């Protein structure tokens, strides 16, 4: 019984939140890695693109809520998501046309692109704050739990409850669907193949008649969609605040690099590695250990390796270790 309780507590506090957070990071890291693979720079504006997408979705969610449209037990934000994606795609294509294309034609160095993306980051950040303000916005509605702690306790008779929030379940399901569609697109369609070819060897791809501007355009569209989905899922699960999205940049970059920049499978694996290390290292293990160990060994303290405020330090430490021992990432990425 104790062992079961320990397992349930572990699932409740570590595995479920870790899976949800990992999916969010993976989606974010996929966007970063695609930009890196095809446009060949680290996009510092990605966090703010996520914030922008989430913001557009929130505005549509409010509109739908005010006219009484809802998705039943699911959050209304799901209905608004397509509009958010369209808005973000429009913004991404506009940014590319007005800003990035010039440097592409100049064949500017990657570090110049990074600098430019800083400027874009500032402006997007400004736009988001200008429209929706810097404060916290909650837009979750619908059913709160798939299964609440109390129901679970009643159902199983265990001391420990297991709560799965709708948003957590939704995050994981959406992430699986999105990743499946993305991989199908990259591996099976003509456009997807041309994108991979362009990423592998630009000159060869150009020689075989692939239109680079088209590839870039599709990349921005996919990245905008991924960023919006990641941003909305994160916002539903936690809450929407422009500054937190900016701070997500670090774990997202860490995920993409740990997995190998430019490698989509790596980005997903990296997302989960970072998420689970953050959760396990900052989780207070006392409860699980008290159940799992015999009484004589039960811990006195919280058995928390690091306080939760150091979660950045965790992603960063993993990043440094990987950079030191395997600079191309766990799954072979690019080293331009």
């Amino acid at each position, binding site marked *: 019984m104790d062992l079961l309780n320990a397992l349930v507590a572990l699932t409740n506090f570590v595995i479920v939140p870790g899976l949800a957070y990992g999916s969010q990071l993976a989606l974010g890291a996929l966007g970063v890695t695609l930009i890196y693979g095809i446009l060949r720079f680290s996009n510092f504006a990605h966090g703010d693109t996520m914030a922008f997408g989430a913001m557009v979705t929130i505005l549509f969610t409010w509109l739908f809520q005010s006219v009484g449209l809802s998705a039943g037990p699911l959050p209304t934000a799901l209905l608004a998501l397509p509009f958010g994606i369209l808005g973000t795609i429009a913004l991404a294509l506009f940014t590319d046309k007005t800003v990035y294309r010039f440097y592409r034609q100049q064949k500017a160095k990657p570090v110049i692109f*990074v600098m*430019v993306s800083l400027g874009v*980051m500032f402006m997007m950040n*400004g736009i988001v704050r200008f429209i929706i303000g810097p404060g916290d916005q909650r837009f979750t509605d619908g059913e709160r739990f798939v299964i609440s702690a109390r129901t679970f306790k009643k159902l199983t008779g265990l001391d420990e409850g297991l709560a799965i929030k709708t948003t957590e379940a939704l995050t994981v399901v959406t992430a699986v669907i999105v990743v499946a569609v993305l991989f199908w697109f990259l591996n099976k369609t003509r456009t997807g193949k041309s994108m991979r070819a362009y990423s592998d060897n630009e000159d060869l791809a150009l020689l075989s008649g692939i239109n680079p501007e088209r590839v870039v355009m599709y990349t921005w569209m996919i990245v905008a969609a991924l960023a919006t989905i990641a941003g909305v899922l994160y916002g539903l699960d936690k809450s929407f605040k422009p500054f937190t999205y900016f701070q997500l940049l670090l774990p997202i970059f860490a995920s993409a690099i740990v997995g190998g920049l430019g490698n989509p499978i790596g980005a997903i694996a990296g997302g989960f590695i970072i998420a689970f290390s953050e959760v396990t290292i900052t989780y207070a293990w006392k409860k699980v250990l008290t159940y799992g160990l015999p009484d004589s060994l039960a811990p006195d303290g919280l058995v928390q390796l690091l306080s939760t405020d150091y979660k950045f330090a965790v992603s*960063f430490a993993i990043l440094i270790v990987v950079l030191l021992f395997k600079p191309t990432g766990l799954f072979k990425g690019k080293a331009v």
Partner: protein
Amino acid sequence: MTDTMKHTLLFVFVGVMILLEGMTDFLFFSGSWNSALVILNMGLISAIMAIGVNIQWGFAGLFNVGIMGFTALGGLAVVLVSTPVIPAAWASGGVSIVMALVMGALTVVAAVMVTKFMPAGKLRALVLAVVLIAGFFVYRAIFDPAVGSVEAINPALQGNIGGLGLPVLLAWPAGGLLAAGAAWLIGKTALGLRSDYLAIATLGIAEIIIAVLKNEDWLSRGVKNVVGLPRPLPYEVDLQNDPSFVERAASWGMDPVTASTVYVKAGYAVMFAVVLLALLWMAQMALKSPWGRMMRAIRDNETAAEAMGKDVTRRHLQIFVLGSAICGIAGAMMTTLDSQMTPGTYNPLRFTFLIWVMVIVGGSGNNFGAVLGGMLIWFFWIKVEPMGILLMELVTSGMAEGSALKGHLMESASHMRLFTMGLILLLVLRFSPRGLIPEK
């Protein structure tokens, strides 16, 4: 018009702007000498930070986005150097904390030794894991109780290990040293990899430094802030109570309160200007020296420089440490100016990316450009808000009083700052990538 004249005029422009701020309240100016001096002081500090970044980026092409962290370390140095000694804290747990930190450092050194001297393989991985895990638990075992006892001492006012009680001016070089140490550690690991990785590594280290400052209450009281740090200049209240100062203020035709605040701020401005000029002179000399030429050679073509026998990674590390030290000095000066340490206020947009805008706009590779960019962009950073409000008043003047849109627009005007800074950065990168005062 020659280049020199043009560049001098740019500096004159910034000077006139600051003078106007003091003299007139026309449009977005405030007409207060206090406000003008506040802008000038922070502008001088920003200029110093911009020199630090320019040394890294302009001289050597290193992309450092962790300026905030080095600035914050400078601030920490002020607390550690200048606040009074708390003997009780040292008696109860201070020594153990230092010992724990030494143990932690020894663990890392041991781990590095293991990696260096043992042949690669399963055994090495095992030994490494044992060393790290054992080291971590020993560290926590010494550290946790010591921290608890230090934080229990007079927590409303202190609860930290205090400082050395030395003159606050000593904190400025100390801030530089602290930042240099951190830069050495991060440079040692991340330099030599591709350029983006340094950017991401520095972004991370900055966040971690801020997290440490916010959470380690024993060090600098965390988010409880350290206020009332010692100042190198007299307090306004003391000046106002000093009959000879009041007399002098009267002879200038000012009331004692304004006179005392202006006097103190002007004093800071003089001190900051001295530091700025000294650093500017050193940076100029370095740039002109063989060392500076070598740095630019490395920046322009690493492969060629390496073929000429230059140790590129070593030189990069050197310049990374130097530039970060300058940012640390500036950070210490800033905390001295505020006379308080508030870890919660460090924000990467303001302390890292804004400095980048300054360097790019001023002209990367040119020290005078960095100084100009620092002062100019700081002026705009402060003044964009009133400008935005003016603009919004203009835009909304036709709208009905009290309409929702008007309210929202007026309220959001203050968020124009980030947008404008991004726009300036993009415009300069696009149309004048060499900046206002280009590299020679």
